[in-house]
């Protein structure tokens, strides 16, 4: 009976705490694998823009810094392997940059591998009629010429093969988030690709840790009771050969791993809990149990799986205009009334000079604007302060740029008590439409290779 495989998550999103990986392995050198997730739904489109300016920048460069931060750990004999989707649009370039760091650090024995084959943009461009939107059933044809990225969520198989071939660091593009965890389990336990219950267990473990500190008390309903919020621990899943796991965190870190934090994360971003779709298995969360076995140790067991869907899910993005948000703080009596009047005046003036927007919005933060019309405890007339947030979206850049220049003049033409304008003009962002769709497995060729 082999000991459980210890898989930790050290990055939940592109921009997460850069020192998490080094701190995890310092706190617990027996961690077998670190997983780092950099890719949200539209992250790849941001990488596409980065790459347009610099062809070598189609991946999450933050990960190269993570590798650099682990050099002392590896010099001292550390063994933890890494699986990450930091490769984004260009896993090869990411691996090359990491290889340079390792060579310069005299760690040439660490083997890098890349997983590729997720890029299916040509298939969507060639046959847009075959890729209807999974959410709306709309046809891709009208937006096909504006596609920026299209990537299939690959599964764990190629990751596992790279690990079996001796890779220490596996860099992928788009893969399903839990597959970063399932891959090491397949390689370590030697599960068959049809061991669906075990794979379901590992998928649940991967799902639980993929959002980093969110399973250790971060984002929790009762956050005010979470201890030491300055240092919430990153999660470790100790996965057993039967696919069950214990979720925990390194000793002497803040946060907490409780029945509540684990249950909350289990259903985070979940649709039908009886049919969680991943490329490795279709998982039922309805059979699993959660048990607090010790302080900061929660056992999760009993997930069941069956064959995955016959196609891969694809996350595609397309250019869809521009937007900007501007904010000003308004203080004083009737603050909300003044803020709305100022926001309307701003948009009125822009319309008057010919700016055309397809959508605008005026929000008064502090009034319950995050869920406007639903939950508010205080009447607007009682608020002495609000943050005015005005937003516009347009098909072209020009009217959005005009908007960005028109915010600051409200300081002198708006009500008395306007402040909070020192951060400069709002930034104009490109909008990327999100296009989820399905692709047949036969059209996707996952591949892996060791990188010299």
């Amino acid at each position, binding site marked *: 009976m082999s000991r459980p495989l210890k898989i930790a998550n050290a990055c939940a999103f592109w921009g997460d705490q850069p020192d998490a990986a080094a701190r995890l392995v310092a706190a617990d050198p027996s961690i077998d694998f670190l997983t780092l997730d950099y890719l949200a739904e539209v992250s790849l489109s941001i990488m596409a823009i980065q790459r347009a300016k610099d062809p070598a920048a189609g991946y999450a460069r933050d990960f190269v810094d993570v590798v650099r931060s682990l050099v002392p750990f590896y010099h001292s004999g550390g063994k933890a392997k890494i699986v990450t989707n930091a490769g984004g649009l260009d896993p090869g370039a990411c691996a090359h940059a990491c290889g340079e760091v390792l060579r310069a650090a005299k760690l040439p024995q660490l083997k890098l591998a890349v997983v590729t084959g997720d890029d299916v943009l040509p298939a969507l461009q060639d046959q847009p009629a075959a890729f209807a939107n999974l959410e709306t059933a709309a046809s891709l044809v009208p937006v096909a010429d504006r596609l920026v990225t299209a990537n299939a969520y690959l599964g764990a198989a190629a990751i596992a093969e790279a690990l079996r071939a001796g890779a220490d660091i596996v860099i992928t593009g788009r893969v399903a988030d839990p597959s970063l965890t399932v891959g090491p389990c397949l390689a370590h336990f030697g599960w068959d690709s049809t061991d669906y219950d075990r794979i379901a267990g590992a998928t649940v473990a991967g799902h639980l840790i993929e959002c980093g500190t969110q399973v250790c008390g971060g984002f929790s309903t009762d956050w005010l009771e979470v201890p030491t919020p300055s240092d919430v621990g990153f999660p470790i899943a100790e996965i057993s050969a039967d696919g069950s796991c214990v979720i925990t965190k390194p000793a002497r870190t803040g946060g907490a791993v409780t029945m*509540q934090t684990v249950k909350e994360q289990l259903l985070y*971003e*979940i649709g039908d809990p009886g049919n969680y779709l991943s490329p490795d298995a279709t998982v039922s969360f309805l059979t699993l149990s959660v048990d607090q076995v010790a302080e900061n140790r929660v056992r999760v067991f009993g997930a069941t799986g069956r064959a995955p869907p016959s196609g891969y899910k694809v996350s595609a993005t397309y250019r869809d205009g521009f937007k900007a948000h501007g904010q000003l703080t308004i203080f004083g009596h009737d603050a909300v009334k003044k803020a709305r009047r100022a926001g309307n005046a701003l948009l009125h003036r822009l319309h008057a000079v010919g700016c055309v927007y397809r959508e605008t919005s005026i929000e008064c*933060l502090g009034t319950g604007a995050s869920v406007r019309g*639903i939950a508010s405890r205080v009447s607007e007339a009682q608020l002495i302060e609000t943050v005015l947030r005005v937003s516009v*979206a347009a098909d072209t850049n020009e009217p959005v740029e005009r908007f960005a220049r028109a915010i600051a003049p409200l300081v002198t033409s708006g009500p008395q008590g306007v402040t909070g304008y020192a951060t400069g003009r709002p930034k104009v962002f490109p909008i990327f439409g*999100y296009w989820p769709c399905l692709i047949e497995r036969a059209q996707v060729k996952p591949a892996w290779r060791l990188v010299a």
Partner: protein
Amino acid sequence: MIPLREIAFARSGDKGDSANVAVFARTPADYAWLREQLTGARVEDYFRPLGVGAVVRYEVPNLAALNFVLPHILGGGGSRSLRIDAQGKTLGMALLELPIDAPKK
């Protein structure tokens, strides 16, 4: 009437232009009460000001939870939405403010 948060905790997340809110009873007895009181129609009605579509409710008895899928509630979602909360981060907290009848003792 009491706010839902007195007997439940919650978490919300996004998927494109849709979101989900999972609501967890704090005790087994309260789960039975939630199942009865917190219908999909009631949640849909509550979130109507945000333009939500037809709400689907899933029961998760092993976690004493109800999972609500809220279509088209994010004003376009992710990169497109102009709202301060484009990713539904606040929807769990919002639902916990829902007034419901206190469970019978």
